[in-house]
């Protein structure tokens, strides 16, 4: 989805002089059409995350809309205070695009793997946090960000597959029910949804109906859909390429327990990364296997829960 997201941003900047693309060091040949037609709208500032986020906020204060493109790990950690204060506290509008959120940079080790980007950006008051699963979502949410007030974070994952059914329209803050809730329900975000879909398919083949609720928007959270889906399930598996705390699982549990009218809590399992630095290297799939987040592993986990 990276290419589609970046192309969408480039188109936005081509069409609107108030849109600027601010990037650290995105590689040669980045957004070539924009670089050729409107070079001043493409601001590549080098690896100075704090300086460039502060600068982007200053431009936002004066009416420009920055899409800030950085590797997810650095764009959320190195300049966190700039995101929190320069954008968040001031209420300035812009979109941080975190390239390679989740396991994408598995070969580069724990400095680059971003399994805390969602919790960091969720913690910024007033932020909007997106974790699309597929290119169409990335395109739509990238466009939508431009019309939102305040800071948006868009996690761009490595995956390129499309979801196999539509799950309805892509609307900011609305969950997509990809498979109808049943005794098993996967709730997922980002590219983990692709694995959840595969798990639901595998379970269906063995006669177990499983639902998939995909949340491309973690904030604002679609509490109503989470609650209505979970009420129909005996087992909920929350799946995220993220730490098991501070991200989707915590939000979902809070949605189920809060609002003064808690649902009867189903059996709940959180699938993700624990309190450790992701160890080893290898491919994206290797990392997914290590954390038992492949479709097969998730299906097996669901079967075990149902029979225990």
């Amino acid at each position: 989805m990276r290419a589609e997201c970046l192309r969408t941003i480039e188109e936005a900047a081509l069409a609107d002089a108030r849109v600027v693309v601010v990037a650290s060091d995105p590689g040669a040949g980045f957004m070539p059409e924009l670089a050729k037609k409107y070079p001043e709208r493409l601001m590549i500032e080098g690896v100075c995350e704090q300086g460039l986020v502060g600068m982007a906020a200053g431009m936002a204060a004066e009416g420009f809309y920055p899409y800030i493109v950085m590797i997810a790990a650095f764009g959320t950690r190195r300049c966190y205070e700039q995101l929190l204060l320069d954008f968040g506290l001031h209420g300035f509008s812009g979109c941080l695009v975190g390239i390679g959120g989740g396991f994408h940079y598995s070969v580069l080790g724990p400095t680059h793997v971003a399994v805390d980007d969602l919790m960091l950006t969720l913690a910024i008051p007033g932020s909007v946090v997106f974790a699309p699963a597929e290119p169409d979502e990335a395109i739509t949410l990238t466009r939508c960000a431009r019309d939102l007030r305040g800071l948006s974070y868009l996690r761009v994952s490595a995956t390129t597959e499309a979801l196999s059914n539509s799950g309805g329209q892509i609307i900011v803050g609305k969950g997509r029910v990809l498979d109808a809730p049943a005794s098993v329900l996967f709730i997922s975000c980002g590219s983990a949804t692709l694995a959840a879909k595969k798990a639901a398919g595998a379970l269906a083949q063995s006669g177990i109906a499983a639902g998939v609720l995909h949340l491309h928007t973690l904030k604002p959270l679609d509490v109503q859909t989470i609650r209505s889906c979970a009420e129909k399930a005996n087992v909920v598996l929350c799946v995220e390429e993220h730490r098991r705390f501070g991200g989707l699982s915590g939000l979902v549990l809070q949605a189920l327990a809060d609002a003064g009218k808690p649902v009867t809590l189903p059996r709940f399992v959180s699938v993700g990364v624990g309190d450790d630095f992701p160890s080893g290297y290898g491919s994206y799939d290797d990392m997914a296997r290590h954390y038992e987040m492949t479709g097969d592993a998730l299906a097996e986990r669901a079967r075990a829960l149902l029979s225990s």
Partner: protein
Amino acid sequence: MLGDEYVNCGSQPLDEKSLHLRRLVMRALRAADKGHVGSALSMIEIFRALYESVARHDPANPKWEGRDRIILSKGHGCLALYALLADQGYIDLAALDRFCERDALLGGHPERDPEHGIEASTGALGHGLPLAVGMAIAHKRKASGVRVFVVVGDGELDEGSNWEALLIAAKYKLANLTMIVDNNSEQISGSLDTVLPIEPLREKFESFGLITANVDGHDLASVVEALVRVSSRVQGPPAAVICHTIKGKGVSFAEQNPQWHYKRGLDPKTLAHLDEELASARQIGSPAGTER
């Protein structure tokens, strides 16, 4: 490098207006019984230069799009900014009496409120300059004529984000950006030389491609002259005006005294001394140093 030099920083007597503004600082300090007083008193003449002479602004129309942007990056020195904003009519004088109260307009650090002349929320250090760089880029692109002035502390320059921002500022040749350094040579734990040596600032700024000036930060005419000179340019690099100042300037027992960086719990005797020191124009304080 501009050919300006300064001698005997802070040796000029403060005029009645500078004393009046310091009394406004003390009014807020007295009301809250706390505040970063030393850090504010070193900047009074810097803000006087900006608001009384150099910056284009209109207190009757605070959100005028064509106003020059003035950002206090070392937000803890906000009492100086508040004193000028009150004096200029951006805020009621009575707001000083509620400094740091629960629902007060004015808190211990500035919060963005263009209606009252405050452009940026600062307090965490190293944020004002990058913001100012972005604003200056925006106005250069708009060809609006708006200039951006950002006041930073010398201790604040420990923050690496400032140096990142200067790289960007030089790249975009932001003649409309002026960084003003409150160079009082002290931070809360002691002198900059002992905490984290940062001199020579001028050479550092020049190596980053900035045009620089060195002035006595309490000599209003010199500060005005330097600011007018660098901010009148429409092309060329950004500027740094290093204002050599005295922390706590105007109150003899507070000057260069780390105990007065942040002060709380003022007893009646100290308050009486403050009133006495700021009562009338006269020679106050001692020279902090001379040009290299």
